[in-house]
């Protein structure tokens, strides 16, 4: 095809397109049509599920049984459901520990790996390995390690003269034990984020501080920490969302037990939806759970704005 023919074809397509799209009077409309596929996709995979979840939450709906409109009954039931309330409190407790521990340990690890030492790259690689493992596989391995009689953790404790623990098999220690697994797996993520922040820090403030005779701690306290804080906030946001909706590790290791001692909102939701098939009530839990995650995210985003470097 010659260049002229191609040009003529292109003009004809353009004219046809203008006619189809209403001509010059609606010049913006053709471009909005390009957005349509994305809008349709968004509506199908995000908006529709949410609307349908909202619809289900307003119904008394169990699989294999007839559906009936229930208004806000599922939401009022939630307000009086002690098990749901305990699950919400446990979620906050779990999330607080599962965010703080990796943040502290990840920052320390980042400060260590920011320094130059032999085989630093190799050790960094080793350190981030847990993050690459599938949480279900991680859960299975830790389940064996936690076993009170046969697990390696109690073997290690007893070999140094400490008493064996019940770990995830005791209501009092199950959440800290699960957080230990989360921490082991996700500290590397925080380390990577903070390490990125440390690499981006300007060197001038450190040079000035050294000239003024500042100690290492003073430099960390007054220079490193404030400058790395925005990166820590990013890590905190990611970890908070992950920790609040944590499911796989808890499900594989403790299934929310013993009893309900580690039943978080996600486990409670799973039980309602996939064990009791109470999809109406489960949908109400989803709506409330979503509201909690959005609120937490907004608070953290606000805090992140406050900690951003001024330019």
């Amino acid at each position, binding site marked *: 095809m010659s260049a002229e023919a191609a040009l003529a074809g292109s003009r004809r397509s353009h004219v046809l397109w203008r006619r189809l799209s209403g001509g010059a009077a609606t010049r913006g409309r053709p471009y909005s049509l390009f957005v349509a596929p994305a809008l349709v996709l968004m509506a199908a995979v995000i908006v529709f599920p949410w609307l349908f979840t909202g619809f289900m939450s307003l119904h008394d709906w169990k699989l294999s049984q007839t559906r009936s409109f229930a208004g806000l009954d599922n939401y009022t039931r939630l307000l009086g459901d002690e098990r749901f309330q305990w699950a919400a409190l446990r979620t906050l407790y779990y999330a607080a520990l599962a965010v703080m521990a990796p943040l502290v340990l990840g920052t320390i690890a980042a400060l260590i790996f920011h320094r130059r030492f032999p085989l630093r790259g190799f050790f960094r690689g080793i350190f981030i390995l847990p993050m690459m493992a599938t949480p279900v596989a991680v859960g299975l391995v830790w389940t064996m390690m936690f*076993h009170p009689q046969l697990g390696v953790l109690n073997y290690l404790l007893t070999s140094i003269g400490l008493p064996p623990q019940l770990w995830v098999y005791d209501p009092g220690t199950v959440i800290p034990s699960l957080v230990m697994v989360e921490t082991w797996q996700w500290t590397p993520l925080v380390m990577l984020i903070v390490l990125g922040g440390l690499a981006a820090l300007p060197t001038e403030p450190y040079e000035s501080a050294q000239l003024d005779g500042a100690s290492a701690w003073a430099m960390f306290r007054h220079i490193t920490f404030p400058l790395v804080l925005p990166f820590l906030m990013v890590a905190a946001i990611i970890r908070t969302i992950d920790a609040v909706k944590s499911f796989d590790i808890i499900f594989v290791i403790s299934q929310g037990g013993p009893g309900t001692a580690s039943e978080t909102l996600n486990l409670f939701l799973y039980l309602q939806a996939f064990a*009791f098939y109470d999809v109406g009530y489960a949908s109400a839990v989803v709506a409330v759970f979503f509201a909690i995650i959005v609120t937490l995210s907004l608070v953290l985003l606000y805090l992140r704005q406050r900690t951003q470097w001024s330019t």
Partner: protein
Amino acid sequence: MDGYRSSKSGLTRRSVLGAGAAALGANSIFAPAVFGQSGFDWKRLKGEHLEVSLTLGPRAELWQKYEKEFEELTGISVGSEKVPEQQHRQKVAIEFASGNTSFDVATVSFHVQKQLYGRGKWLADLRDLIKDPKLTNPDFDFGDFAKGAIDYATQKDGRLDTIPINLDYWILYWNKELFQQKNVAYPRSFTEIIEAARTINDPKNGISGFISRGLKNANVPVWTSFLLGYGVDPIDPDLTMHTDGTEATEAGKIYQTLNKEFAPPGVAGFNWNECQTSFVLGKSAMWLDGIGFALPLEDPAKSKVVGKVGYGVMPPGPKAQHSALFGDGVGISASSKKKEAAWLYIQWATSKQMNQRHLEGLYGAPARASAYAAVRASGKLTGPKLEWLDAMAGSIKIARAGLPDIVAVTEFRDTFGIALTNTISGADPATELKKATEAFKPVLAKTEKT
């Protein structure tokens, strides 16, 4: 007490007794038929393809092991997948609710899914298929299935939407070596179970007198095993609950005593697999659970107690002697477009020959009477394996449904499972069971209303 109904579906002690008698008494005509000898046209649907969804476990292993035999017999290709029990139940239920399943055949647990599936009419009624001589092999011999098993599989409205595969009788596994060391005899009552556990329990040397499921939900059959010994079911067919009365509390106290005082630390989080691990290592003297564990216990590669395991019938309680009964079946998805091919698969999978393999291989307790007679006549099971078969025979005679035949059985297990787990941590059984009963009453009223 004999003959009273334990469930709405018609599972009675008498019917199970009848099934047991049939299973034990037969001795001559039960050599399994070789497929294709009856002139039945197995190949009439040659070229079709079936999808089969199986619950991960011994029976799925058995069926997959011989799957090629079915494919060669019928010319029907099979795609079968094994999914762990809990996930399988969810997957299958959600697919059924969607109205269009990816599978043609699925396995079903009677004690958890039967009522749910029955209410939704998610499985095809098999009665017409069974009656049709063009579709059913004459050797299928429906009358060979234990009546109790067929009653267990039958829905409240009389529909038969599954063929029973396996009946799981709860027995007491005991470590003969540990018993001999302390000169203790096999217990003959609930009190003797406690006394035996107390005598043998030796935490300093890592030996527990008893072990059973402590994990919520999974632990409920342990409690109902004791409750049945007090002569009551957890819930009557008329929905009367017996879950917080004197009998329930006494059964709860036994559960608490055995698991709190004589089980290994951490038992509150143990399911059957942790119990099995402890028992195969020779660390527990008694283990109360389903009968299907002989295979790993007698496997030298997995077990340190090979040849030392006693397979005991559940000892009598103060008022009755019962072995808690659970079961599984296989059915055809109501939305399947290959129901006839699926029916051929089920006929093969639940045939006399497969049932005999099932029993001989220690895969569990099949539902056909002929399998028991054939295996005894063959003399293939000897020593501990024969003792296992005897325990099964003894349990058949006293079998009784271990869970109520209600739609909300998962909620029942969850609610009472939490109460039982709490008792291991020291909570009062009476208080916990009363609280659980109050919590479950509205669920029962709502889910059972017609």
